[in-house]
């Protein structure tokens, strides 16, 4: 047939509706409502891509991931992952994907890390040589050597997370879904994890689909962002494009020595004044340097800081403009 294998993940007009029953005052029976958790969702991901899948809470991210992995059956549209229909061929698909949750562990809490990995080796029928090689590599890269014999329940969050990532990768999955992988981790651990994921993608061509609220995860890892809101895609493209389209702004927080009238410098607008502290916003694609220089030359400044735009704000902006 065709030599082009097509996209690794192919989602077309995907929909998932839930029936929700709610009580209405004055009625004895509960009223049935249809909630469209996901609708008209179309996107595809090629092998080797690193894609950020973002959106506010309740936007439909988890619902999409559940349908991509086959644990939730779509009520409309089509999903194909690696040529398989996830919900019909869930078990076959499971051998080819990896899943990592920031807030849940796939490890067995009462077992030492090593035993969890051994169990996974049997579960995924990983050839022993390949298993040893992978384990050695991940243990080294993720610095897990000292924890291998510790029961999972005694690991720190960062150690547990690294254990979970190893667990998800031992069987060489083609795709790995990461749900808030850096949540609760300190800055150093976050950095190390991102570096590891980037290396994984480059060395093995593993496709990454990442849901996160941490813009820096996306910035460090993803060339492409899909934004979902109210169950459907509202943006699909580069991160820079997202900022431009969302019209997002950065904030310069200025602590003056004395209280003053709102600061007036070109290129920035005062958003808020509280005593000697003022908040100035400026477009996120503009440089902060001339604004900082202008403020510093005209006022007695005690301190300055810059706040990056919150991904939620960008998305909210995007959505309110699109609607």
């Amino acid at each position, binding site marked *: 047939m065709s030599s082009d294998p097509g996209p690794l993940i192919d989602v077309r007009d995907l929909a998932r509706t*839930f029936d929700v029953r709610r009580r209405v005052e004055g009625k004895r029976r509960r009223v049935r409502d249809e909630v469209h958790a996901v609708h008209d969702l179309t996107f595809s991901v090629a092998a080797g891509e690193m894609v950020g899948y973002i959106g506010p809470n309740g936007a439909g*991210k*988890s*619902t999409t991931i*559940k349908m991509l*992995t*086959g*644990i*939730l*059956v779509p009520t409309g549209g089509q999903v194909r992952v690696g040529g398989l229909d996830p919900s019909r061929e*869930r*078990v*076959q698909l*499971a*051998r080819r*994907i990896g*899943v990592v*949750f920031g807030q*849940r*562990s*796939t490890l*067995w809490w*009462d*077992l030492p890390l090593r*035993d969890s990995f*051994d*169990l996974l080796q*049997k*579960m*995924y029928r990983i050839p022993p040589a390949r298993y040893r090689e992978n384990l050695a590599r991940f243990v080294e890269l993720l610095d897990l050597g000292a924890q291998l014999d510790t029961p999972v329940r005694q690991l720190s969050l960062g150690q547990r997370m690294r254990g979970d990532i190893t667990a998800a990768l031992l069987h060489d999955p083609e795709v790995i879904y990461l*749900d808030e992988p850096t949540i609760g981790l300190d800055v150093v651990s976050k950095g190390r994890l991102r570096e590891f994921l980037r290396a994984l993608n480059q060395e093995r061509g593993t496709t990454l689909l990442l849901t996160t609220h941490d813009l820096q995860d996306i910035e460090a890892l993803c060339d492409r962002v899909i934004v979902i809101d109210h169950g459907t895609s509202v943006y699909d493209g580069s991160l820079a494009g997202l900022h431009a389209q969302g019209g997002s702004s950065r904030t310069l927080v200025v602590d003056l020595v004395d209280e003053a009238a709102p600061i007036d410098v070109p290129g920035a607008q005062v958003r808020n004044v509280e005593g000697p502290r003022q908040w100035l916003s400026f477009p996120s694609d503009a440089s902060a340097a001339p604004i900082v220089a202008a403020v510093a030359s005209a006022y007695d400044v005690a301190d300055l800081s810059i706040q990056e735009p919150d991904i939620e704000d960008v998305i909210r902006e995007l959505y309110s403009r699109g609607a």
Partner: protein
Amino acid sequence: MLHVAVATRTFRRYSTYRAATLAGIFTNSVFGVIYSYAYLALWNENPTAGGYDAQDAVTYVWLGQALLMTIALWGGGTTDDLAERVRTGDIAIDLYRPVGLVGWYLASDLGRAAYHLLTRGFGPTLIGIVVFDIALPASPLHAVAFAVSLVLAVIVSFAIRFLVASTAFWLLDQSGVKVMSGAFAIFFSGMMLPLVLFPGWLGTLSNALPWASYVQVPADIWLGKHVGTGLLAALGFQVFWAVVLLAACQGVLRLATRKVVVQGG
């Protein structure tokens, strides 16, 4: 191989609760003594009740106490883990794995049952032999058949407990159904009174229900009440329920993952 590893792991997990195990053996033995004297009083009045003699009756009591935890008569066992994982949404993780859920939990429950048999099973049986001179298996053949019957009893009980735990997919919590199912189990398994004492249609009915596989069938095999094709028929009865109920587990699971939302994101 995987399922053996799973069973071994659960066996080890249960074996960490040593004090609870000892307390459990003690409790089983106390109930064994109480029931023994109650049954002896009964068989003193009617020495051939249900076709048992007094020694059969007392043996039946101690077998029941030994089987109580092994078959997890009250419910629970590893299926409680399942219900809890459904409630918290961790079940999603089990579903991401390339293994069937029923086989996984069955392996785990067999590991648990093996541990309970070695401790909560052998403990009271030993006390029954020493204190009440209970009967040993009728023949080596019956001993082997009893072992097979015991495994089948655990499988039938597992399947019923799995179905009960699966109600958590719809009800979020299995506890109400579990209590109800436990009540049926204690009555229809023959744990409270041997089913051979049940009169008329109640006897016919209770001997046809799956709970008879729990205590009545293995105990009758131990006591040598089934011989020849009767023995095969008794084991066949258990196999029938094991197959039907395991198929039901698969069906319910398919329904649950199709119709029901896995909790949490």
